[in-house]
């Protein structure tokens, strides 16, 4: 078994009808690595996340989580095996409070499953973990506020909170900073770094400043293929990447961000 990798994709393909969206992706992410996936709009980054997290089933190819095949499994099965994802469009429980949102994310991982024979309020470990999460994402003051009434940035933080709540080892974040201002983004990136310490992180990101600040490695996806997967410095120097995608935007981001 190739369990030295936390997440491994082997010639992964996805067709919608006759259209090939993902055209044979190979990717191997070591445990604890932070990988940013970049690429132009429509390159298939979100589809790739959907294939990994079970939202879509691949047409062919394999997805391995810690050496175990997970392609074709249902999202909740994949989540139970230790992979959790966030969404580009905020996807939380609008009519539940911040605390309840996070606690829902915690319950399965602590083994409470479908029980109706215990009171939530007596589950000390779940409640303590929820409080801890709420502190980590900085929403203690909004504890009893319904998620629908939070500000956008707070909802994005809650989105991350729900994603990491189950303690999954592999975290997929789909454009976590989409729609945020520059200062919010900076704050948010440090939050993400903080809460994903020791975890394997894959993130789709558009902001090049964020990408080069956050990632150990960068995967460049163009037209459903990974054309480069290497350290930021190597990717920046990669001629094919420059030609296909980065070009002047890197220089801009470098000039502005650092």
């Amino acid at each position, binding site marked *: 078994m190739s369990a030295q990798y936390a997440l491994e994709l082997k010639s992964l393909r996805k067709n919608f009808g006759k259209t090939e969206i993902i055209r044979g992706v190979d990717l191997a992410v070591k445990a604890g690595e932070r990988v940013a996936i970049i690429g132009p709009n429509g390159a298939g980054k979100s589809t790739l996340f959907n294939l990994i997290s079970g939202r879509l089933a691949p047409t062919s190819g394999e997805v391995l989580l810690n050496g175990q095949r997970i392609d074709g499994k249902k999202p*909740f099965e994949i989540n139970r095996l230790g992979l959790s994802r966030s969404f580009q469009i905020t996807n939380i429980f609008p009519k539940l409070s911040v605390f309840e949102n996070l606690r829902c*994310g915690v*319950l399965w991982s602590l083994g409470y499953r*479908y*029980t109706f024979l215990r009171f*939530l309020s007596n589950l000390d470990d779940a409640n303590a*973990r929820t409080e*801890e999460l709420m502190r980590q994402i900085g929403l203690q003051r909004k504890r009893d506020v319904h998620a629908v009434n939070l500000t956008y940035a707070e909802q994005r933080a809650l989105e991350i909170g729900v994603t990491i709540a*189950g303690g999954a080892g592999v975290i997929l974040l789909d454009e976590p900073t989409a729609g945020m201002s520059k200062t919010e983004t900076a704050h948010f990136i440090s939050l993400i770094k903080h809460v994903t310490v020791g975890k394997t992180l894959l993130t789709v990101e558009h902001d090049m400043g964020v990408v080069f600040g956050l990632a150990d490695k960068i995967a460049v996806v163009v037209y459903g293929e990974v054309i480069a997967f290497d350290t930021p410095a190597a990717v920046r120097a990669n001629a094919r990447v420059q030609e296909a995608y980065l070009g002047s935007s890197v220089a801009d981001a470098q000039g502005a961000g650092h």
Partner: protein
Amino acid sequence: MTSTTTTTTAATTQYYRFKPWNIGRFLIWSLFAIVLIVSPLLFKSSLALTMLSQMGYLIIICLSYNILLGQGGMLSFGHAVYVGLGSFLAIHVMNMGDKGGLQIPLVAIPLVGGLAGMFFAILLGFVTTKKSGTTFAMITLGIGELVASMALMFPSFFGGEGGITTNRVYGPSFFGFNFGPQIQVYYLIAAYCFVCTALMYAFTGTPLGRMLNAVRDNPERVEFIGYNTQRVRYFAFIIAGFFAGIGGGLASINFEIVNAADSLSAIRSGGYLLFTFLGGAVFFFGPIIGAVLLVFASILLSELSKAWQLYFGLVFVFMVMFAPGGIASLVMMNLRVAKFGKFNRFWLLYVALAVALVPVVVGAAALIEMIYHIQLNSALGPKLNYFGVAIDTSAAASWLGAAAILAVGLAALEVARRRFVRVWGQAQEEIEAEIKRREAA
């Protein structure tokens, strides 16, 4: 991981700890128990006792329905199936006892109904809960019709058009109660009502209960935090079926008859849906209000007027339009205003609304009754007795008079409503500002 968890437990539990006997909760449940106990002592007529008995089991049924609708976001059009099948199983077991077979004490008969409801929920719910949303609603409708029409095909079990009758007084008495007199049946129903309400309330505080809310809010995300949404819906459906069956069992004991054409019908399911919604599906206690209204509507209103379903339909339409959270949400919104000490300004406005509503109701009802009269009772002549006033439906003055009263009422209501909306909006703004201030502090 474990070490951080244990250290944080000590730090966090001090401000988050369950208080099962907090005063407010204790008071409310005591009050509920007292109301159940005292009601038949205050309202002694046999009509009142009949109504109270029906309210008792309808509270259970509407609350069980709200596990689906309010807590799980499942719009079921077939809840009467589980209530009705609970009724049938209960009545057959009673008859078995009556005929000298296995005697299950009458106090346990509602549980027989409950287990029957649960059994059929396990069986039929497996199909139903595969889907959510519109598909779920369609499947429940289909299964409801299927069961209702199948019931007529098996007259030996369902009793055909006449239904099945029973005698609830069989076997040894239970601590001196034989449950012959209606008052004893009432207290049996009341006891079940209290226990079932408490159990269903407890359910809302369990992991499954909370995940059911999460499935209602956003089923897709639930799949990505480790839960199978179908399972969550299925388990909740089974629990709702259990309590529905208990309600059905109690109905059998109460009436000593159950009729398939009536108790399994889509109309009955619709009734549970409408009154649960009217009471308020957003809050746990809403369906209790709904069940009480259901009894008032079906017993008192139907005595008062042939057009009661039309009146009820109008009320329902206005509720959906102006208070989609039902009566419970109206109560809670006003309590919120009162909690922030802003209720005083509304007394006069509520009086004004009520006063303006009188001519609206009188005028509209007069028109409706006149129309009903000429359609249905024209053979009895043009005279109609309307709350002791004789109205001549052949005279134009009657119609014009009623229309004028209605018009005046509508105008007054509109004036009062506009004022109310303005003051209400202002009060809400003040409350929001107050909350912001407290948050910042």
